[in-house]
């Protein structure tokens, strides 16, 4: 049995990551380039190289720490870590997987609430109109995050510059988009 098969068959987060996004955690040798280049590393509870190290341990408690981390939601998918990784480990794709897994298992870090609220508002806008309706996004985000005063001065300035539409543009294929959302269980 090869090393990689050994991982895949085990019921650990490293095993699922390998199976889903072909990231082999054991390849990481902790050079730290990902964390050094990560623009948000100093905001993270677990910088990317630390996530890799915890994955390697295959300890349930460490898997739990990763899924419950704030870090996986702070990752902005700038792709810097991947481009500098000497082992070409696709950390950005892994972060996408970890976020979706954390939501599925209801292990989302409380501090990430607003980030997720924003993503949900964004997708809601597309679900109903096919395109992003920026004013709708802002209002829906305010409703979800209860952050009423933020950016309140921005909207009038955007409107005066012709940068914010008051009404959404509905594409013809809205029913088509709704089916895509349904089939992908979004």
């Amino acid at each position, binding site marked *: 049995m090869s090393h990689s098969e050994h991982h895949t068959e085990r019921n650990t987060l490293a095993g699922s990551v390998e199976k889903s996004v072909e990231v082999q955690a054991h390849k990481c040798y902790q050079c730290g380039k990902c964390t050094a280049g990560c623009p948000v590393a100093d905001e993270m509870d677990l910088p990317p190289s630390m996530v890799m190290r915890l994955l390697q341990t295959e300890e349930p408690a460490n898997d739990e720490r990763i899924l419950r981390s704030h870090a996986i939601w702070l990752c902005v998918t700038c*792709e810097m870590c991947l481009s500098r990784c000497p082992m070409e480990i696709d950390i950005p794709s892994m972060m996408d997987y970890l*976020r979706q897994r954390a*939501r599925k298992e209801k292990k989302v870090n409380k501090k990430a609430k607003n980030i997720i609220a924003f*993503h949900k508002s964004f997708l809601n806008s597309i679900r109903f109109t096919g*395109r992003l309706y920026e004013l709708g996004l*802002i209002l829906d985000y305010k409703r979800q995050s209860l952050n009423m005063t933020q950016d309140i001065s921005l909207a009038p300035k955007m409107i005066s510059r012709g940068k914010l539409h008051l009404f959404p543009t509905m594409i013809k294929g809205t029913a088509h988009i709704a089916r*895509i959302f349904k*089939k*992908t269980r979004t």
Partner: protein
Amino acid sequence: MKFGIYPGCSLTGSARDYNESVFAIAEAFGLEFTQIPDWNCCGATAAHNLNKELSLALPARILALAEKNGLEEIIVPCAACYSRLVVTQHELKKDPELKNRICEVIEMDYRGTSVILNVIEWIDKYIIPKLEEKIVKPFNHKVACYYGCLLVRPDKILNYDRAEDPQTLDIVMSKIGAAPVDYPFKTECCGAGLSISRTDIVSKLSGKIIEDAEHRGAEAIIVACPMCHSNLDMRRPDINKYWKAKYKIPVIFVTQAIGLAIGLPAEKVGLKRHFVEVKIS
């Protein structure tokens, strides 16, 4: 010659200035676009963060519509949309099973044959060959060329410019008379999709990008991404507040700079819509 264009949502709203400049220079060079009929949002960061299948299905519908309408080459001015379309094409090519599943989801045929150009590739291919004869007012300014993330990364998939110290935007700007400064922040991240949910992080990261450009004596930051533009321009009051600074450097789309160099008025290329006043011409 007719190209397909995928404007993406930003260009119809907060990046209307970018859209105006793309269309204005296209017109000046006799180039016509056909919008991909009934295009939808690419899903952006939200889709790939929350649902992998959705993040592939939304761009796949766009590409399938382009194929269906015979648009073989499509220009995608938004760097974020460009990245989503190219990455989707790559993922579906790599995994035929996944491709079949996505075709089922979008209820359309998808072959993956579209040639997808980012704005600089489009400029290189169609504007540069006829540029010299059109320049009436060389853009004689020191500039910091800011590529951001998604125009150059993931570099192994985009296969475009080099990931560290890319050059394509600097070369285009030199050709209209600008003097690009050495700029180590050219591929640092502006904070991207955290603009609304974590404005503090965006202010911090964007501030560093702006500070270094000013420090190096640049008169403008040149961009090719609407998200970078809105973070560096529209978020300037937040940035100045966060850093207790008074950064004044304007942020100009590469297409706006080209427009000025070929003598188009500032209004026509959307320069009057910026938050940070653009005094250079």
